[in-house]
C-alpha cells in the first residue's frame, strides 16, 4: 500500500479508537444510571435508550461501527485488532490524568504490554490479502 493509502488507514484507526472509547464510556455511564436489566423484553432496552448518556453513547458507537467496517475493508483483522487495542491505553491514561484514578503497578504493566502490542502490529503491513478471501470465508 502506498504512503497515501497508509495515511487513510491510520486516520480510520484513529476514528475507530476515539469513537469506541468515547462511545463506551458514555454508554457505561448511562447504563449505571439506568440500573439493572436482564431482560429479553425490547421495552426495557427502549427505556434505557431514553437516558441521554446511553443515547449519545449509542450514536457514537454507530460512528464506530461504520468506521470499523470501512477500516476492515482496507486492513487485515489481525492488524486491526491489536492496533485498535490502543483504546485501552487511552481509557487508563484518561482516568489517571483527568479523573485522578490510582493506577496500580499491574495496570502500568498492562498499559506497557498493550502499547508494545500496538507498536509491533503497526510495524506489519496493514493488509496482506488481495481481493476477497480465498479460504472458507
Amino acid at each position: 500500500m502506498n504512503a497515501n493509502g497508509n495515511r487513510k488507514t491510520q486516520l480510520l484507526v484513529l476514528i475507530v479508537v476515539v469513537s469506541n472509547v468515547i462511545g463506551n464510556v458514555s454508554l457505561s455511564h448511562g447504563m449505571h444510571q439506568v440500573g439493572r436489566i436482564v431482560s429479553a423484553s425490547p421495552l426495557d432496552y427502549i427505556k434505557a435508550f431514553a437516558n441521554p448518556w446511553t443515547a449519545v453513547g449509542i450514536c457514537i458507537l454507530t460512528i464506530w461501527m461504520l468506521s470499523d467496517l470501512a477500516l476492515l475493508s482496507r486492513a487485515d483483522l489481525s492488524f486491526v485488532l491489536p492496533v485498535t487495542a490502543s483504546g485501552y491505553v487511552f481509557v487508563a491514561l484518561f482516568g489517571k490524568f483527568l479523573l485522578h484514578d490510582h493506577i496500580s503497578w499491574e495496570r502500568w504493566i498492562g498499559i506497557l504490554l498493550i502499547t508494545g502490542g500496538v507498536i509491533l502490529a503497526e510495524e506489519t503491513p496493514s493488509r496482506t490479502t488481495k481481493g476477497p478471501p480465498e479460504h472458507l470465508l
Partner: protein
Amino acid sequence: MRWILVGIIAICNTLGDVLNTAGMKRQGEVEDLRPQTLAWMVRRAVVNPYVIAGIAAMAVSFFALLSLLSIANVSFAVPATAASYLLETLLAKYILGEDVRTRRWAAATLVAIGVVLLQF
C-alpha cells in the same frame, strides 16, 4: 447468568468481526470518508450477507453486554475479551487467509495479557 452472558459476548464478537472482515473485503476498499462514499458503503453493506450476519452477531453481543453492564462491573467481561484476541487472530489466519507471523502473534498475545492486567 453472568458467565452465560460473557460466553455470548465472546462468541458473537468473534463471529461478528470475522464475518464483517470477510464481507467488507468482498465490497472493495473504502477510499475516503466523504458522506457519499460512506452512503455507498452502507448501501452495499445492507445487502451483503456476510456483513448482515456479522452485524447481527455484534448486535446480540451488544445487548448481552448491556445486560452484563447492568448487573456486573465491566471487568467481568475481561477474560472473554482477552481470549477473543487470540481466537480472532487464529481465525484471521486460517479462515480469512491473512499472513499472521511472529510479530502479529506477539502483538495479539501482549494485548491479551495486557487487557487482563488492566483489571488489577
